[in-house]
Structures are given as structure tokens and as C-alpha cells.
């Protein structure tokens, strides 16, 4: 009468295809991404070295690297990087807290959404740089106005991401929670939070990207230190190598911080069944 065993053995195990990728592909994949920039850099280095170009406006990688080491040796680099990181960190922190709170409220209570969301959406339509003069008048030209600007940039993607994620939680899954009589708080903790986590991580990463964008804007407007200041200084003194050095450092820091978010979220998202994941294994 009970014939469960045969079917069970018959069905194959999809879990098995999650075996570790071969050693070659494990190292070859990141290397593949480096191929294009390294080839370009090496090519330009050769062009300048063989005398086809003097490399004054577009300095070769070796000169950019020399500028970075020089800045590092004098201690300048650490000062600029820490100033910029501090601003991004604070602005990102405030933006994430505000965006998460308001986004969660708007997503969870439809009354709050009707009250709040139209205003937030209207504010979102304002190009964020338009706030700069006002922030400077209100908050002064020092750190506060810069951090406020970065926080504004981070706020909107996080707010939208959290609200959208909550609104799009599968009704059928919520119903499972209801059949097990989960109260409001337990429903949030056991159903809603895990369900919105993937979208939340994406919104954090988008927010961080905007934070890096806005820190440059803030530092271009008026600063005596920071990577943005290095950019401006390089322009005014005609030092393209310094500009490129700052750009390279921006790229490295941006990628690194993004990777940190990804790394921190990974243990919580192992369950995901997504297209991108299937391709990575």
C-alpha cells in the first residue's frame, strides 16, 4: 500500500550539481575580468615608453603608480582616503537608517504609505545636487553639509528598495504565516524580514554606489582634504597623474566596499534560487 520508496530513489538530486567548481575555472574567472584593463594599461605604457606619445595629458600607469606611492610615503594618501571614507561612512549610515525605517513603515502600513510616499517621491524627483546651495546655507561649508548630501543620495534607493521589497512579498507565503497564527511581530521576523533580504542587499549596494558618487560632488564643492580634493587640486595644478591616481583609488575603494556588503550578506542568502547563482556554480 505504501509505495513511497521507489519514487524517492528515482528522483535525482539537484543538490549534487552544487559541487565545487574545478580549480582552473575558479582562478580563471577573475583573471578573465582583469584581461581587458591590464592589456590596455600595458599597451599605453608601451606606447609612451617607445616615444609615440609624451604621455603628458594621459600619463602611463607607471607614472600614476609613482604618484600614488609618493602620496603614500608623505602620509597624504592616508589623510585623504580616511577623510573620504569617514564622510561616505557617516552619510551612508544615516541614509541607510532613514531609508530603511521610512521604507519599512511605508511598505508595512498602507496609511503611512499614502501619507508619506507622495512627498518622498516628489523629493526624489529633485536632482540631489540641487540641494547643495541650501545645505551649505543651512549646515555650513564644513563636514555636516557634505554628509547630509551623501545621506540624501543614499536614502532614496534604500527607501524605494525596502518599500518595494515589502510590497512584493508573496501573498501565498504570508498566508503560510497566517495559518501558523504568527502575530504581527513574529510575522515580520519569520516571514517578512527573510523575504525582503535579497532586495534589501541590492538596495544597499545601489545606495553605496550613490554615496561614492555624492562624496565626489561634495568634495569638489569645497574641501581641504579627501579624494575629491585631490581631483580638484590635480586639475588646478595641471597634474593629470594625480587625478588618475584619485580615480583609481575611488575605483578600488568602491569595489572593495561593495564587495564587503556582498560578503556580509552571502551567509544569509545561500538559499536563493536565482538565475545568477545557477550560472556561478
Amino acid at each position, binding site marked *: 500500500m505504501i509505495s*513511497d520508496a521507489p519514487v524517492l530513489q528515482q528522483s535525482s538530486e539537484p543538490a549534487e550539481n552544487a559541487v565545487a567548481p574545478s580549480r582552473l575555472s575558479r582562478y580563471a574567472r577573475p583573471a578573465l575580468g582583469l584581461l581587458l584593463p591590464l592589456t590596455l594599461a600595458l599597451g599605453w605604457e608601451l606606447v609612451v615608453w617607445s616615444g609615440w606619445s609624451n604621455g603628458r595629458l594621459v600619463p602611463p600607469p607607471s607614472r600614476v603608480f609613482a604618484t600614488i606611492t609618493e602620496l603614500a610615503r608623505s602620509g597624504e594618501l592616508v589623510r585623504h582616503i580616511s577623510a573620504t571614507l569617514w564622510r561616505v561612512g557617516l552619510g551612508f549610515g544615516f541614509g541607510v537608517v532613514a531609508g530603511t525605517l521610512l521604507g519599512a513603515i511605508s511598505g508595512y502600513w498602507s496609511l503611512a504609505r499614502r501619507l508619506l510616499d507622495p512627498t518622498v517621491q516628489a523629493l526624489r524627483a529633485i536632482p540631489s545636487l540641487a540641494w547643495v546651495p541650501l545645505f551649505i546655507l543651512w549646515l555650513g561649508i564644513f563636514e555636516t553639509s557634505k554628509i547630509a548630501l551623501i545621506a540624501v543620495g543614499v536614502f532614496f534607493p534604500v527607501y524605494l528598495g525596502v518599500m518595494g521589497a515589502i510590497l512584493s512579498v508573496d501573498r501565498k507565503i504570508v498566508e*503560510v504565516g497566517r*495559518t501558523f497564527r504568527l502575530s504581527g511581530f513574529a510575522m515580520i521576523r519569520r516571514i517578512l524580514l527573510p523575504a525582503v533580504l535579497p532586495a534589501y542587499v541590492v538596495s544597499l549596494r545601489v545606495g553605496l554606489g550613490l554615496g561614492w558618487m555624492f562624496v565626489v560632488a561634495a568634495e569638489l564643492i569645497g574641501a581641504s582634504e579627501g579624494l575629491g580634493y585631490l581631483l580638484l587640486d590635480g586639475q588646478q595644478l595641471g597634474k593629470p597623474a594625480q587625478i588618475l591616481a584619485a580615480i583609481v583609488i575611488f575605483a578600488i575603494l568602491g569595489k572593495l566596499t561593495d564587495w564587503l556588503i556582498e560578503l556580509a550578506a552571502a551567509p544569509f542568502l545561500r538559499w536563493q534560487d536565482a538565475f545568477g547563482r545557477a550560472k556561478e556554480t
Partner: protein
Amino acid sequence: MLALDRVSKTYPNGVEALTRFSAEIRQGEIIAIIGGSGCGKSTLLRAIAGLDRASSGTVTLDGEAIASPHAKIGIIFQEPRLLPWLSVADNIGFGLAELPAAERRAKVARALDRVGLADKAQAWPRELSGGQAQRVAIARALVPQPEVLLLDEPFSALDAFTRRDLQDHLLDLWADTRPTLILVTHDVDEAVVLADRVLVMRPRPGRLFDQIEINLGRPRDRNSPLFETFKRSVLASLDRSLDRRVPDRDATQGPGQAMWW
């Protein structure tokens, strides 16, 4: 005993999904509800589950009125609806959060064993086949030992072979604690294999049309002539519920030929 007393449901848009449905269901009885589309069978099930409130009429379980999900009533949906971020074991233990961890683990392990998925305890839901996922859903609903288990077309998304297998498996699990089973289905075979009593509903507005007792011993042989007779009588009742006139002695146009679904 589960008592349904003139349960009606009218949706806000004015559609009368269910009208004055009354039935008394004994503890441990297996009921199949069958009927054409739009006959309110899912509406009825959701009212018993406490997920939707009836517009009028009452659902009472052992004298207690049901208006919201109840600990003694479990439900299995058409889709497994497993929580993708929990392992198979944690999904099964989802309704046992109040128990001490050791007791919960023991119950989950027993349930996993019972549905033949002990080796999948730590797997993610995405790694399961459709039949395995539905087994986990059955285990999740059964492990808190409900008195009433509702099933909303639980096997309709599975292939014929897996479906048969799970029907037998469900009966086997049912024998452990003998909860009341109320099964919504559109599969006549399934109704006759599982049910003690088949309730036939008729649509527009949804209401009870007919009841057929299936007086067959268990285990039931799907190929016996008696099984066939009960199937025919259910099909004939379905045809009548839709006012299809069925020529009686025409072999090619037997009951059930009308497209009642």
C-alpha cells in the same frame, strides 16, 4: 466534530461564491469536495481554515467557532509554499516554534523519516522535486498534529505517477493519528480512492448538490469493478450538477463525457 452551518460567502464585488453550505463532518472522516469551477470549493476551504471569514453562517470545531486560523486546523495548498530560506527540516518545524528545541528536533526527525526524506533534512527547498516539496508541505502541516487537515487540490500540479504515490502516502500518514481530512479536488479518481464521503457541489452560486458515501474497504483497488461503479456514480452526479443531460445507454457518451470542469 466539524460543523458547517449555512456558510455563505459573498465577495465585495457582489459575486456569490458560496450559499448556505451545511455539513457535519465526524472526527477522523475523510471528505472529498468536488465540483465544477466556480462552485466555491476553495472558498469553503478557506472559510474552514479561518483565512477568510464567511459572510454569514458559522464554522464550529468541537463547539468552538472558527473565525481565524486555529491550532487544531492545518492546511495544505496546491503549491507546497515552503519558505525558501529555511532548510527542509526547519520548514517542517515551522509550526513548532513554541516547543523546546530538543523536542522539536525529535518531532521533525520523526516526520522526515515518515515522509521518506530523512536524507534531505538539510537541503534547501529549491533542491527538491515537486513531489518531494509537497511531501515536506504535508509533513509541515501534520507535525503539529491537527485535528482537521484541509487540502486544497494538493496533488493537482504533480504527474500521474507521483500523484498516486502521494495519495497512498497520505492515507498511510492519516492512519497515524486519524485527523479529519477535507480534500478539495477535481480528480474523480482521487476522490474515490481517498474519501469516505464525496460532497458534490454545483456552481453559480456555489452550493452543496449531492453526497455520495464510498462504502469501500481499505486499501482500495483502483481497478476493481466496484471502484469503477463509485467513480461512475460520482461522475453522473457531477454531470447532473451542471444540468448536462446524459444519454443513459449510449456507450460512447457515458457519464463524465460532459466537460464538467
